[in-house]
């Protein structure tokens, strides 16, 4: 059997580009003094770092949506949970440098009269524990949620909407001040991570590179999963879930595994995002954030992995530029971008490019979606 290679040409281009960025950006930032024409301002480093974190989120989403047909409208939840885990660690690192000088309690707890640290904050003063939680919390939620939903054969829009309900419920919960996680203000005013000052230039460059590396690893994991027989089964599940059952596969296992791994990837993305933007708050759980992430994937090209990452960068870059250049009309431009992409690049940027130049359709290409309403669209199962 002609096996698909782990890294195909577009993968090489992607990894090479990523490697180049991870070298050039630090070089331009650290290697040239501010004021030099070649100097890259530190704020841009963090901005790019943020894009890369989003790219990892998009990649995670593409793994489940593009290859498994699970349109998650709640992936922001995993991202935010990872972010909170990191935020809690960063909060504990502040120690007695908070405004009230309390060595244990973060500031917001002091002025809301907390006496002790809530139990779920314990352990977060250790980086290793926090890092574990970055994976474990989103992973566990993804596993439990996925296992329940997939076992009950919740599919299609039903699944999409309950993922949205999930993130919405979490948003409301985290908004509550009684949750002990800072309520609406969230966690902010971070000082240092592993002893490095999060504001320092060196730190910003390092975490940028770390995000780049995480993205590359995420890509390789996703790629490994999708080129193996496992990936083929995922696609089979996506196209005709119940048919796979009659072949003896248990789609719920395959989906849950993919969903859990994807959730963990999203969690890592969130954890890398937080120190770079300096705040994590319940707004990250907002359903529109998750929908936006889906849109990055669609813009870049669903089911292409590279495209998802590219889409995240493109859309967010457009957002950064447009909110600055045309603050009153950027929504028009962004809205138009989405419409134009759907109409003229039906497979997204990368998907369309692959179709143009790539010749044969790969197995991951999407089937023509059935022309039937959503209640029918989930399973194309014959009698």
């Amino acid at each position: 059997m002609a096996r698909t290679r782990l890294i195909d040409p577009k993968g090489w281009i992607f990894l090479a580009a990523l490697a180049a960025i991870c070298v050039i950006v630090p070089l331009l930032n650290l290697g040239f003094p501010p004021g030099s024409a070649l100097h890259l301002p530190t704020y841009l480093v963090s901005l790019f770092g943020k894009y890369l974190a989003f790219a990892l989120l998009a990649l995670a989403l593409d793994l489940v949506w593009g290859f498994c047909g699970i349109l998650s409208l709640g992936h922001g939840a995993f991202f935010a949970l990872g972010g909170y885990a990191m935020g809690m660690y960063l909060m504990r690192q502040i120690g007695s440098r908070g405004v009230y000088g309390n060595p244990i309690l973060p500031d917001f707890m002091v002025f809301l009269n907390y006496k002790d640290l809530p139990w779920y904050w314990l352990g977060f003063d250790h980086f290793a524990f926090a890092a574990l939680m970055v994976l474990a919390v989103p992973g566990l939620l993804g596993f439990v949620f996925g296992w329940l939903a997939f076992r009950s054969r919740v599919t299609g829009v039903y699944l999409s909407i309950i993922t949205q309900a999930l993130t919405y419920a979490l948003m409301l919960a985290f908004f509550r001040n009684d949750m002990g996680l800072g309520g609406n203000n969230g966690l902010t005013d971070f000082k240092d991570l592993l002893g490095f000052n999060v504001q320092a230039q060196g730190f910003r460059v390092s975490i940028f590179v770390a995000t780049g590396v995480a993205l590359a690893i995420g890509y390789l994991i996703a790629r490994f999963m999708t080129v193996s027989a496992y990936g083929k089964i995922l696609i089979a599940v996506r196209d005709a879930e119940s048919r796979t059952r009659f072949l003896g596969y248990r789609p719920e296992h395959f989906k849950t595994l993919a969903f859990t791994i994807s959730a963990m990837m999203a969690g890592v993305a969130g954890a890398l995002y937080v120190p770079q933007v300096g705040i994590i708050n319940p707004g990250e759980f907002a359903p529109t954030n998750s929908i936006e992430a889906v849109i990055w994937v669609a813009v870049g090209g669903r089911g292409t992995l590279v495209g998802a990452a590219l889409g995240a960068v493109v859309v967010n870059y457009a957002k950064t530029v447009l909110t600055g250049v045309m603050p009153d009309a950027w929504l028009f431009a962004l809205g138009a971008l989405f419409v134009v992409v759907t109409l003229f690049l039906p497979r997204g940027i990368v998907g369309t490019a692959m179709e143009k130049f790539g010749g044969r359709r790969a197995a991951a290409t999407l089937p023509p979606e059935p022309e039937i309403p959503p209640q029918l669209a989930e399973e194309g199962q014959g009698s």
Partner: protein
Amino acid sequence: RAEETIKVGILHSLSGTMAISETTLKDVMLMLIAEQNAKGGVLGKKLEPVVVDPASNWPLFAEKARELISKDKVAAVFGCWTSVSRKSVLPVFKELDNVLFYPVQYEGEESERNVFYTGAAPNQQAIPAVDYLMSKDGGEAKRWVLEGTDYVYPRTTNKILEAYLKSKGVASEDIMINYTPFGFSDWQTEVSKIKAFGSAGKKTAVVSTINGDANVPFYKELGNQGIKATDIPVMAFSVGEEELAGIDAKPLVGHQAAWNYFESIKTPENEAFIKQWQAYRKNPKAVTNDPMEAHYIGFNMWVKAVEKAGSTDPEKVIAALPGIEQKNLTGGTAKMLPNHHITKPVFIGEIEASGQFDVVNKTEGLIPGEAWSKQLEGSKDLEADWVTLKCGNYNTKTKKCGGA
């Protein structure tokens, strides 16, 4: 080549949930800058506004703040509305050492070197408002509903108020505290709860820290359930002329708001300001409100400070600002205090059918803003003074500056 200008950043959401409140603040800043330029600018240079849209997204606030300071090299930033947006940009201002003027009433518990708070601290709004409600003129309220949106500002304010009320002898069972989510729109149950609470035979008043969009449905429901101000007055801290423009005010006549500015206050300065604003917006019905005045004060203070320092260098401007005075639009003179808050008069206004406020009470003189609340356990020993102590949270007990 264009001549050299001084750039001023404007960091207010123009889209998303907060656009409803913040967009006018952007406009008022543009107006003030244009006016200053007409007067010849500052230090002989013209001011150039840099507007960005952080889109009601808190991390984006931080990103945009960074962009304004690092890329556009602004001399100062006027912006933010919600506390979380301020908290989000704080580290950026500290790191890049720039100046933020924050124009909205807030929960206090903060004093930062780089931030100047031109809105009210709790002692400049909440406490006087409650004092009024307890007074004979205010209706001698004995039972209290503290109704708020579930976030930091109402939580803190209510905490302060609860402590304050208890210190005034109000029993626990006469205080009901209630929180609802952001953008809450179905107020039937909450309002009927208030109604029930208010039917216990004691004069009841509601102190509302309900935020933003949720106010309109709240007031509509009050009107629908026939709760008149004479039954249970509602004292709001976040409802101004702007918000009322979206509601039919007739059923709300007599409900109250506490602010440091009302459009209806007749002073020559205010009349001129309103005229200028309506001309600028080309809309004879455009209304003014409290945070707009805060920006007016903040901006003029900044101009004076720059001129005093002879430079826009944030370092020097920060040093120059405390002590700067600027006339309020409503009479009296605001003064920037060493704790980076300002002195303010406090007014209680009652809603009129026209959607304006009738000022029914005014504090004697101006009240200095307190960064740290005297009512809260953790903060009553803290003091902010950036002039002599050079510290925002000096602990008078331990004689140490915390957090530094």
